[in-house]
């Protein structure tokens, strides 16, 4: 496939062309307030990353999935009925490669070897994803160390990068190619430029090479290591890390009722909460924050790689690093996991 260029003065037309009547989500607002939202104002091209990961677009914090009528004279009384996947044709511009990778990782959980989550699938597959590569990684960024790249392509249909106040575009899938073609843009050979920019952006992140060691160590060796209580000691157990993580996908299912009927909804949940695992009997397999913190890091750095051909469950977006009130830094934890003895 060839690459394409969007000149600065052609940006507005470009966004119109790719939206083509569909919902266009793009970065809105600056700095900490930047969000991926329905594009009503100018599209930001220069931002670190969006405050929240884009996962809520496909997996809202609260989502009604089923409902039922409660009164005996109503149709299908007491029988759950489906409320639809709430999917609509969407083009998303400006997902950072780390977040797109995070979505792709979650996608393998929502569409696993046995079951398909239709609510996720509908939304995920009705969205075309245009990534925006990072030229200047933020201080908390470490995607390269997690096996990704500031120009990573996983989970994207098109990769864009800022180029002379416009964009360079690299289609990655047939759907992406089609999307870009519809905008009738001048083509160009940008392969070597992309390679150079990628190299520069990776170098700006600094080295981190402890992850291979984690891959080589056995589950129980990492699990039984003696550092976990010290690692977990500062943890407040708030779960901010999980709410902001682009690959955290755990949820709770709850029914809420009114006079006429009830709704089954699913809400984000967090493994940092003691309630997450507690049995009806009161027994809790992960009773203290040591087990819960261990679970989170083991899940990201060991369990997901086992299930997903070595792809790590952390994409290096750095949100948890910045958001954790107690500054529990996954980079430090990974290094400790690689070194610690059982």
């Amino acid at each position, binding site marked *: 496939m060839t690459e394409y260029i969007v000149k600065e003065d052609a940006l507005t037309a470009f966004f119109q062309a790719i939206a083509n009547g569909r919902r266009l989500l793009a970065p809105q607002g600056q700095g900490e307030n930047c969000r991926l939202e329905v594009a009503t104002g100018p599209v930001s091209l220069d931002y670190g990353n969006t405050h929240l990961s884009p996962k809520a677009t496909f997996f809202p914090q609260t989502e009604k*999935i*089923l409902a*039922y009528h*409660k009164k005996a004279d109503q149709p*299908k*009384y*007491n*029988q*759950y009925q*489906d*409320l*639809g*996947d*709430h*999917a*609509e044709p969407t083009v998303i511009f400006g997902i950072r490669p780390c977040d797109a990778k995070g979505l792709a990782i979650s996608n393998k959980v*929502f569409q*696993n070897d*046995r*079951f*398909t*989550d*239709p*609510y996720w699938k*509908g*939304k995920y597959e*009705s969205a075309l994803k245009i990534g925006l590569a990072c030229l200047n990684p933020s201080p908390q960024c470490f995607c390269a160390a997690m096996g990704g790249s500031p120009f990573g392509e996983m989970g994207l249909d098109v990769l864009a990068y800022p180029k002379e106040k416009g964009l360079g575009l690299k289609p990655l899938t047939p759907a992406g190619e089609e999307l870009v073609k519809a905008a009738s843009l001048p083509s160009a050979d940008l392969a070597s430029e992309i390679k150079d920019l990628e190299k520069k952006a990776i170098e700006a992140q600094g080295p981190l090479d402890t992850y291979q060691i984690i891959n080589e160590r*056995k*589950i*129980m060796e990492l*699990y039984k290591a003696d550092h976990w209580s010290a690692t977990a000691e500062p943890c407040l157990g708030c779960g901010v890390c999980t709410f902001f993580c682009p690959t955290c*996908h*755990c*949820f*709770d*299912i*709850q*029914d809420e*009722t009114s006079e006429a009927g*009830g709704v*089954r909804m*699913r809400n984000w*949940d967090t*493994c940092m909460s003691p309630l*997450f*695992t*507690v*049995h*009806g*009997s009161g027994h809790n*397999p992960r009773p203290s924050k040591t*087990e819960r913190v261990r*679970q989170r890091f*083991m*899940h990201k750095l*060991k*369990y*997901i790689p*086992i*299930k997903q051909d070595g792809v790590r469950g952390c994409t290096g977006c750095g949100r948890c690093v910045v958001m954790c009130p107690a500054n529990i830094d996954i980079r430090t934890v990974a290094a400790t996991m690689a070194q610690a003895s059982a």
Partner: protein
Amino acid sequence: MTLLGKVISVNNPYMPYPVRIASVVVDSPDKSLRTFKFEFLDPEDENRFAYLPGQFAELSVPGQGEIPIGIASSPTEKGYVLFTVNRVGQVSSFLHNMKEGDIMGVRGPLGHPYPVEALKGKNIVIIASGFAVTTLRATVVWLLHPDNRPNYGRITFVYGARSPGHLLFKDDWEAWQKRDDIDVYVAIYKMVPGWTGKVGFVPAVLQEICPPAENTAAIICGPPIAIKTTQPVLFEAGYKPDNIIMSLENRMKCGLGICGRCNVGPEYVCKDGPVFTLAQLNELPPEY
């Protein structure tokens, strides 16, 4: 009206099959256990709900939520499904107050069954403690079915509970005791007048009668303490970890390997289990 997108009417794993409660049987003197017999409102759903012993389902009570419960009936029993429910939390307490004829949902089957296919040609010893007997009852019924019984060697069933009143499925195991193609040992933990069977905890009973390990697999289900104390007896008799099969339970919501709370290491108890061999569990964190 909100925008719904596609309505997922087929293959929605979150959608329970509507069922009618056909009967409710109180199973224990303290009324903490009840066995529910469900009939599918749409008879076609019974075919869609194709299961094997050891699998579980989410009992879905409108407005209350869902609980994962092992299926106590065998697929060889047509026309209904059975679940024995212990009254513990919000959903199970509500369910205990539901009556014959009430409409609710059953979602499944979920999880993997006991490896009945891989066990063909082997002897099987089935060890049940307390009300965890449910999926093992299903297994025995399935194994004793004329279609299946010739495929297996010697079958031994060991079952213990607190008192005669706490022994579930009395009609079943009394009938099995009369057969010559299964050895049945039923015990209570403490002697009561009138009891003629064995007395003692399950591991002690097992120790007495444990079949030789050669070409034999053990299936254990029970509370953690029973599982823990049974293992040494099996080791002593020469059973290897990959021939000891167990069923785990953890808190669950989706049952589909997505919502994340039942993880034991990289495995989801709901999707990858609940049946594991001891050999598998030895490589996993003991978070269950």
